[in-house]
C-alpha cells in the first residue's frame, strides 16, 4: 500500500538532490513525474495522518475520489507536457519538481493552513516560471497580486482559527454547520478573494494577460492546465466541502463567476493574438466552473475542468510553439499555419471543438451535463449566460480555425501560396503529445460512460449524503 505523501515527498527530495546533480535536472524531473504516475495507481483511498498526531492536532492528507481523480489528471498532464516540451526545461527542472510537489500537496491536504503553505510554494514556482518570458514587469505584477491574494487567504484563515480554534478542514466544516453564516461573511469572502486571484476570477485577474500571453510552449500549457486545474479543484474543495456560504453571498459569488464568464468570452472575441484568445477563454472557463461549484454542481464542474484543461494543454502547446518559432502569435501573420502541420492542426481543432461543446467531442457531454444540472436547480438565468458564452466561444474559435487552416482573402480560393511565410516545425514529441490528448477528448466524447463510471463517485462525494473520508475523524475537540 502506498502512502500519498510520497507524491509530495519524492518530487521534493529529487528537487533538493537536483542542486547537487545539476546536469541531470530535466532527467530528474521526468523521473519524478513518472514515478508519481506509477505511485498513483498503487494508492488506496483513505485518510493519511502525518507525524502520527490525529487531526485536528496534526496534519492529514485526504485521498477521496475527488482528490484521486484530480491528482491523476494533474500529474498525467504534468508528465505529458514535460515530455512534449522537454527541450525547454533545462534549468527549470528543480523549479518544476517543487511545483509538482506543491500541486500535489494542494490537492491532497486536509488542513487549511497546510493548503496555504502549498499555495505559497506553488505560486512562487509560478512567478519563477512566468519570468522565463523575460517580461519582468508582468511577473512582478503577478507576484504582487499573488502575494496579496495569499495574504488575504491567510487573514481569512486567521479569523476562522480565532473563532473555531482549529485549522483542520473537516473540523472547521463541522463547526461551520452550526455557526451563524451571516457573521462568517468576512472570512469566507477573504478566502474567496485569496483563491480567486489564482483561479483568475474577475476583478482579481489583472496578472493573467501578461503572464499567459507571453508564455512559451512549456510554461503556457502548464499554467493553463496543471496550475489552473489545481486551483479550481482546490476552490471546489474549500467552497463545497469546507466553508458554508450564506445564501446572499452565494448568489453574489455566482454572479461574479457568471460575469467573469461573459467578460472573458467577450474579451476573447475582440483579440487577434492566439495566446490572448486562449487566455481570455481560460478566464471565462474559470468563471463558469466557479459558478458551478457554488451552485453545488460538483460533478458537472469537475467534467468542465477536465474539458478545459485537456483542451488548453493542447492549444497552448501549439500556440506557444508557434510563438517560440516565429516570435509572433498574431493569427493574421500565421494564416494557413496548419496546412504545413496537419496533425497538430487537427489536434488544435479537436480541442477547440471540444471546448465549444460540439457533439461527438467530450465537451458536448460536459456541457449537456452542466446545463441539465442547472435546470434541475430551477435556475434559468445561468443557462442563458452559459449558452451566450458558448455562442461567443464558437464564433471566435471558428474564426481562428478558419484563419489558421485557409489562408488568403475572403472570397478567394485559398491556396498554400497565401500561407504564412514563417516555417513552423512542430517536433514529433509535441505532435504525439497533442494527438494523444485530443484523442482522449474524442474517445471520452464517444464513450462518455467511461468517464462517468470513473467519476460519479467523485461527483457525489462532495454532496452531503455520501460518506467522505474527510469526516472519518477520531476524537476531535
Amino acid at each position, binding site marked *: 500500500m502506498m502512502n500519498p505523501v510520497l507524491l509530495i515527498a519524492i518530487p521534493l527530495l529529487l528537487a533538493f538532490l537536483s542542486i*547537487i546533480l545539476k546536469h541531470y535536472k530535466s532527467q530528474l524531473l521526468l523521473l519524478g513525474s513518472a514515478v508519481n504516475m506509477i505511485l498513483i495507481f498503487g494508492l488506496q483511498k483513505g485518510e493519511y495522518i502525518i507525524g502520527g498526531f490525529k487531526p485536528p492536532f496534526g496534519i492529514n492528507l485526504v485521498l477521496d475520489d475527488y482528490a484521486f481523480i484530480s491528482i491523476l489528471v494533474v500529474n498525467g498532464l504534468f508528465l505529458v507536457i514535460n515530455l512534449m516540451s522537454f527541450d525547454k526545461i533545462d534549468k527549470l527542472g528543480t523549479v518544476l519538481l*517543487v511545483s509538482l510537489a506543491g500541486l500535489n500537496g494542494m490537492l491532497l491536504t486536509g488542513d487549511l493552513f497546510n493548503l496555504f503553505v502549498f499555495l505559497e510554494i506553488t505560486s512562487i514556482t509560478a512567478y519563477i516560471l512566468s519570468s522565463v518570458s523575460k517580461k519582468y514587469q508582468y511577473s512582478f505584477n503577478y507576484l504582487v497580486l499573488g502575494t496579496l491574494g495569499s495574504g488575504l487567504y491567510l487573514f481569512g484563515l486567521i479569523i476562522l482559527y480565532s473563532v473555531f*480554534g482549529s485549522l483542520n478542514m473537516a473540523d472547521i466544516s463541522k463547526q461551520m454547520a452550526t455557526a451563524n453564516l451571516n457573521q462568517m461573511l468576512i472570512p469566507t469572502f477573504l478566502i474567496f478573494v485569496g483563491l480567486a486571484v489564482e483561479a483568475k476570477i474577475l476583478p482579481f485577474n489583472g496578472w493573467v494577460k501578461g503572464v499567459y500571453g507571453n508564455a512559451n510552449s512549456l510554461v503556457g500549457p502548464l499554467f493553463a492546465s496543471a496550475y489552473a486545474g489545481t486551483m479550481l479543484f482546490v476552490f471546489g474543495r474549500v467552497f463545497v466541502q469546507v466553508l458554508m456560504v450564506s445564501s446572499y453571498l452565494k448568489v453574489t459569488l455566482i454572479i461574479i463567476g457568471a460575469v467573469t464568464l461573459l467578460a472573458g468570452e467577450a474579451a476573447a472575441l475582440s483579440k487577434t493574438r492566439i495566446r490572448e484568445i486562449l487566455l481570455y477563454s481560460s478566464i471565462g472557463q474559470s468563471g463558469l466552473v466557479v459558478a458551478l461549484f457554488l451552485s453545488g454542481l460538483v460533478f458537472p464542474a469537475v467534467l468542465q475542468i477536465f474539458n478545459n484543461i485537456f483542451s488548453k494543454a493542447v492549444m497552448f502547446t501549439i500556440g506557444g510553439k508557434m510563438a517560440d518559432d516565429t516570435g509572433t502569435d498574431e493569427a493574421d501573420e500565421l494564416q494557413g499555419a496548419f496546412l504545413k502541420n496537419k496533425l497538430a492542426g487537427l489536434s488544435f481543432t479537436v480541442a477547440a471543438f471540444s471546448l465549444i461543446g460540439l457533439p461527438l467531442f467530450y465537451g458536448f457531454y460536459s456541457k449537456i451535463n452542466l446545463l441539465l444540472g442547472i435546470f434541475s436547480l430551477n435556475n434559468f438565468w445561468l443557462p442563458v449566460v452559459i449558452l451566450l458564452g458558448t455562442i461567443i466561444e464558437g464564433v471566435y474559435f471558428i474564426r481562428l480555425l478558419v484563419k489558421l487552416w485557409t489562408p488568403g482573402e475572403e472570397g478567394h480560393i485559398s491556396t498554400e501560396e497565401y500561407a504564412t511565410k514563417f516555417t513552423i516545425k512542430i517536433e514529433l514529441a509535441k505532435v504525439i503529445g497533442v494527438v494523444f490528448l485530443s484523442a482522449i477528448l474524442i474517445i471520452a466524447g464517444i464513450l462518455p460512460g467511461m468517464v462517468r463510471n470513473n467519476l460519479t463517485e467523485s461527483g457525489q462525494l462532495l454532496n452531503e449524503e455520501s460518506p467522505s473520508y474527510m469526516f472519518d475523524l477520531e476524537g476531535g475537540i
Partner: protein
Amino acid sequence: MKKIVAIALLVFIGALLFTGIYAIDGFPKYGEAKVADRVSEGYIMKNVTEANTDVVYGVSTNLETGSANYVTSIVVNYRSFDTLGEVTVLFVSSLGISLLLGGFSGKLRNRCKANFILRMGSKVVFPLIIMTGVYIFIHGHLSPGGGFPGGSMIASAILLLYLSDEKFRVNIENFKKTESTAGSLYVIIGLLGLVISNYFLSNFINTGTVGALLSAGIIPIIYVLVGLKVGSELTGVITDFLKEEVE
C-alpha cells in the same frame, strides 16, 4: 485625488473588517481566548496521542514530543509538514533569485574602502556571530529561536564580511551542496518515519527528558538541518543580490 480615494477606501474597508470581525460570535477579545477550546491545549499539555496531565521540566520523560519550547514542539513536531513546506518556500525563492540574477557576474563595488576598524572588527565579530547562530539552532528545542533565526544569523555574518571586505567572495558551490544535502536529509528523515512507524515525519527516536540538550527525538536534528539550510540559502541570496549588472 486618486490617492485620497485610495486612502478613504482603505479606511472604509479597515473599519468594515474591524467591526465585522468583532460581530462574530465566538471571536475572542484580545487576550481573552480560551485555550481549552482550541487545539493549543493539546500542544501545551503534550497529550494529543497519550493521556498526560503534568509536564515537569527536567523530570518528565518520554512524552509524545520532548521539546521544552512549546513553539518548537508545534513547528517541528505537531505541524512539521508545514515547516518542510516553509523550508521549500525559502528554497524555491532563493532558487528563483539565482535564476533571475545568476546571469550577472562580478561583485558590486563599494564606493570607498572600508576603514581599518571595520575590517579588523568584523573579523573579530564573525566567529562570535557564527557561534551564536549555531547555539540558537542547536538549542531550538529548549529556548526561543531555532533553525530559521539561527540560519539567518549565520548569513548575517557572511553579509558583514561582504560589506567590510571588497575582495571577499564565498565559494557558492559549497553552500549549494550544504543546502541540497540538508534539504534532502529533512525529507529522508520524514521517509524514515514513514518506514519505521508508518507516519511521514513521525518522531521515531526516544524523546528523553524534557529540558535536556539531547532530548526531543528528531526535533534537534531537524532544526540543525534547517539552520544549515537557511544559513546557506540566505548566503546564496546575499551573494546573488550583490552581483553587478554587466551589460
